[in-house]
């Protein structure tokens, strides 16, 4: 027997188009970075040194030059870092690990990217936040409550959002998003 086990994703690589809404499953590598008390004052400089880009304020995210690494500031002492490419993980994380508490989170989440003209009307049905450009610009990244579920919503472009929710309730979350898309289609 081949002693090798293989990975699956919560939504088996979903891709669907409903009306003017496109849904795709995405699976970034995600790590949580907690800031030790004594590092509080040096967070910005250390991150800048290691990541080569500025840290965001709470509720926002920032990207590296190639837009493959996204740093999200969840709260005063906690960040999430998202890697599009698994190959970039080790280098960055090994450096960060020396200064911060790191916990892997990749498998805790399901990612659904929603894009298309009707993204806003679709999200309007489940998301209590004001997603208009004035109050929710590109790269805003916050947690909120959608259909009884905890969701991290990130505006990636003017017409697309990345939604991260708990992987165990991935199917219910997908149902929530799909139902919205169908209801407005």
């Amino acid at each position, binding site marked *: 027997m081949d002693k090798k086990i293989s990975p699956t994703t919560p939504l088996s690589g979903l891709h669907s188009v409903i009306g003017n809404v496109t849904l795709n499953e995405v699976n970034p590598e995600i790590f949580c970075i907690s800031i030790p008390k004594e590092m509080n004052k040096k967070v910005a400089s250390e991150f800048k040194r290691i990541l080569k880009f500025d840290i965001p304020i*709470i509720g926002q995210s920032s990207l590296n030059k190639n837009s493959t690494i996204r740093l999200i500031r969840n*709260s*005063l002492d906690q960040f999430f870092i998202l890697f599009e490419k698994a190959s970039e993980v080790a280098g960055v994380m090994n450096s960060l690990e020396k200064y911060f508490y790191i916990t892997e989170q990749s498998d805790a989440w399901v990612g659904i990217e929603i894009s298309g003209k009707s993204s806003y009307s679709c999200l309007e049905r489940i998301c209590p936040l004001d997603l208009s450009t004035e109050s929710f610009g590109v790269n805003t990244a*916050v947690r*909120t409550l959608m259909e009884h579920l905890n969701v991290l919503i990130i505006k990636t472009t003017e017409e697309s959002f990345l939604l991260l929710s708990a992987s165990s309730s991935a199917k219910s979350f997908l149902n929530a998003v799909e139902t919205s898309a169908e209801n407005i289609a």
Partner: protein
Amino acid sequence: MIIPHPHLGPRDACEFVYKGDAELVFRPERVAPVDYDTFHNYLYLRQNPAGAHKELWYHEYGDRSWLVVTRNTQTHEILKVEFASEYLSGQKDRKSNV
């Protein structure tokens, strides 16, 4: 209700979980001899004002912060919102007195 989060702006109260009287942050420390009355008063007795009330809200569907919200219990008007840690550091004398 809408709770204006100090960093995240106005958020629907349904993102939060309520705990109650902000006095609960001033937990007495157990030192010998144990003062049960102080613990009883801390845990069980409440001011329960009809008016401005300092109270604890947890941003469960948000940044997981515990906030001290000053809210009028007659009108529900929110007068002030602070992080619990900030509130505590503003009340340092209070804490050591308990």
